[in-house]
């Protein structure tokens, strides 16, 4: 196989992971981690210009290109944040150098697994990649080895494995459905072949397969009622991992789901996948919005906000049609950028205050103006206030729904408003009022956070026509 950009975005993280596992000295490894992530991002950008033809294992089209660019970009900025975060963790001796070496190697393995899941043209390979990503994050969530971290990792591991097992059963059923018309062997698992022939598959088998895939990959997306692992995993792991989980891994699982949704959409007699996704999305959004009120742990609170937004995105893709799909894609992008920016801020806040309890933080805008206002801006963005990017995408989701199913739109607006109120209630005590807790200066790199927030602000007022055309094209692909 010749070395093209698609193999490069797999090789770079894989090789770097091997090197990082061997290198001692955490400063050098942190830099190498950033460098590798940056190279992956550049390679991903090159895919926009030159795209290699689809093979039996790997392929790139308009749809996964969006995800690849987003994943490598957030992977790069998170690695910058992670360098300053890990510096502090070493200083307070929360992590030993051995664990940091392990952490950096795992970070690149995770990037490899996510890239592989995105470029895989084979539904079996995609499944393996998502399983690898799950196992990697399980190890990273448990890295602090406290009671809570271990319980969180165990819960994530058990629920994640069950989800992944159900997804494999669904994958096998898809193969069974494809076999009569495509023939035995490798071809019946190649996605580009599947989508061409999908109209001739057995509809009943496809339906059952989709239910398994929805439950399986839906667990990884964090859809209620299969979300139980998500808040724990976000709260107890290192914050860069929370950022990557929320901003990227949930998207990757959703991407897998979208691929199978496209298969079903091609078949005229198969069950419409939309209503199932709409229902699960709406339940997740409403449930998570109510759950935001009683949160005492800052990372746990934003984890519930991720469930809410993944619900909204799943809802949008479930509604389908060019406008709702466009809104879903936009929302996914802005949510990834905003949520990871928030976790960057939260990571530094938790380090400065030495705790994640909301009750022990206060007056952040007074004691740490840059950090505090960054967090305020992030929360304003994630709550969906105009004129920021998330407002745009939520507005599109809601208006496109109003035109077709007004009652669903009412419920969705309810979820968004309840979520907004819950977030502001907590933000008020964190960012304003009497300063509480330690006020030591934050040694942090604010560049990644403000880069993300800047992009989100721009997306709210101006979208480059190229990007719009690209997203519209993808929205049409999604059907």
């Amino acid at each position, binding site marked *: 196989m010749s070395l093209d950009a698609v193999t490069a975005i797999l090789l770079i993280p894989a090789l770097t992971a091997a090197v990082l596992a061997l290198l001692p000295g955490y400063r050098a490894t942190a830099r190498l981690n950033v460098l590798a992530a940056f190279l992956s991002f550049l390679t991903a950008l090159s895919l926009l210009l030159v795209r290699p033809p689809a093979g039996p294992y790997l392929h790139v089209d308009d749809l996964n290109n969006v995800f690849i660019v987003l994943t490598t970009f957030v992977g790069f900025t998170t690695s910058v944040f992670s360098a300053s975060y890990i510096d502090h963790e070493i200083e307070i001796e929360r992590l030993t150098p051995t664990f940091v070496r392990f952490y950096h190697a795992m970070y690149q393995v995770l990037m490899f697994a996510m890239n592989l899941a995105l470029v895989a043209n*084979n539904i*079996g*390979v995609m*499944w*393996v990649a998502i*399983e*690898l990503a799950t*196992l990697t994050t*399980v*190890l990273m969530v*448990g890295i602090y*080895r406290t*009671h*809570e971290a*271990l*319980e*969180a*990792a*165990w819960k994530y*591991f*058990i629920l994640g*494995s*069950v989800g992944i*097992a*159900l997804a*494999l*059963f669904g*994958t*096998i*059923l898809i*193969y*069974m459905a494809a*076999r*009569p018309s495509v023939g*035995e*062997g*490798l071809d*019946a*698992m190649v996605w580009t072949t599947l989508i061409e022939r999908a109209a001739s598959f*057995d509809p*009943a*088998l496809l*339906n*059952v397969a989709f239910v398994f895939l929805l439950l399986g990959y839906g667990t990884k997306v964090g859809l209620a009622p299969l979300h139980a692992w998500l808040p*724990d995993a976000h*709260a*107890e792991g290192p914050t860069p991992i929370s950022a990557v989980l929320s901003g990227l891994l949930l998207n990757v699982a959703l991407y897998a789901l979208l691929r199978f949704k496209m298969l079903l959409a091609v078949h005229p007699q198969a069950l419409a996948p939309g209503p199932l996704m709409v229902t699960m999305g709406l339940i997740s959004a409403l449930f998570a919005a109510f759950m935001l009120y009683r949160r*005492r*742990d800052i990372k*746990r609170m934003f984890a519930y906000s991720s469930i809410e937004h993944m619900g909204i995105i799943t809802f949008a893709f479930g509604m389908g049609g060019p406008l709702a799909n466009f809104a879903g894609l936009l929302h996914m992008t802005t949510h990834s950028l905003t949520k990871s920016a928030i976790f960057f801020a939260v990571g530094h806040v938790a380090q400065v205050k030495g705790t994640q*309890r909301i009750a022990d933080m206060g007056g952040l805008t007074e004691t740490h103006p840059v950090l505090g206002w960054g967090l305020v801006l992030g929360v304003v963005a994630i709550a969906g206030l105009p004129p920021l990017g998330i407002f745009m995408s939520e507005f599109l989701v809601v208006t496109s729904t109003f035109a077709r199913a007004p009652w669903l739109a009412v419920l969705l607006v309810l979820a968004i408003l309840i979520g907004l109120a819950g977030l502001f209630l907590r933000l008020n005590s964190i960012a304003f009022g009497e300063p509480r807790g330690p006020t030591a200066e934050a040694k942090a790199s604010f560049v990644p956070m403000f880069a993300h927030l800047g992009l989100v602000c721009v997306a709210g007022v101006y979208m480059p026509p190229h990007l719009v055309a690209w997203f519209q094209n993808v929205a049409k692909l999604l059907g």
Partner: protein
Amino acid sequence: MRGLTFDIAHMLAGTLVLVSFLELYQDRLYALLNVFAVHAFVLTLSVAWQAYVQGAPHLYVTATIALVFKAIIIPVALHRIIVRLGIHRQIEKVVGVGTAMLIGMGLVALSMVVMLRVTAGADPLAREDLAFALSVVLLGLLMMVTRRNAVSQVVGFMSLENGLVLAAAGAKGMPLVVEISVAFSILIAFIVIGIFLFRIRERFDTVDLQALDRFRGERR
């Protein structure tokens, strides 16, 4: 001949479901591990039979992995972990044996109804295999839900994976990629679990997950 091959495949897959039920009512850890070894052994026979019937040599590899890894190495290793950690051997259950068996029967009935109905077009061997495989998967899930002890949850998860391998072997001509990856993932899963068990031991002096529940993040 056609009838005989079908009958043998049918019998082996059915035995796997039966052994799943046996796992469900074990109340001592050692006995559970022994039954799991039998489970993996029946899976080996079943996959090997499929390899013979389908003339698919790569399935023999899957059968060998199941035999060596799941029927021998894992039960032995778990035995040693139990001894070394001094875990108390009684398994605590969330629901009684009778209830668990009744739920199990319901799940088997459910998977028969669902799978036989939707696979009407497929060849009978694959149909039966899929229906049995789904039963084994669901029984594995049931076991994970009804046990409080970490080791028996792991055993539940592995018998769930056995069901998946049965399904993959039954799907004629399914590429090797998937079978090896399944086996591989079990390996990784086991390493992960092993590490966790040791860490859990280090920190709590118990592998009973109820002890972990006391440390739930929200109640600090």
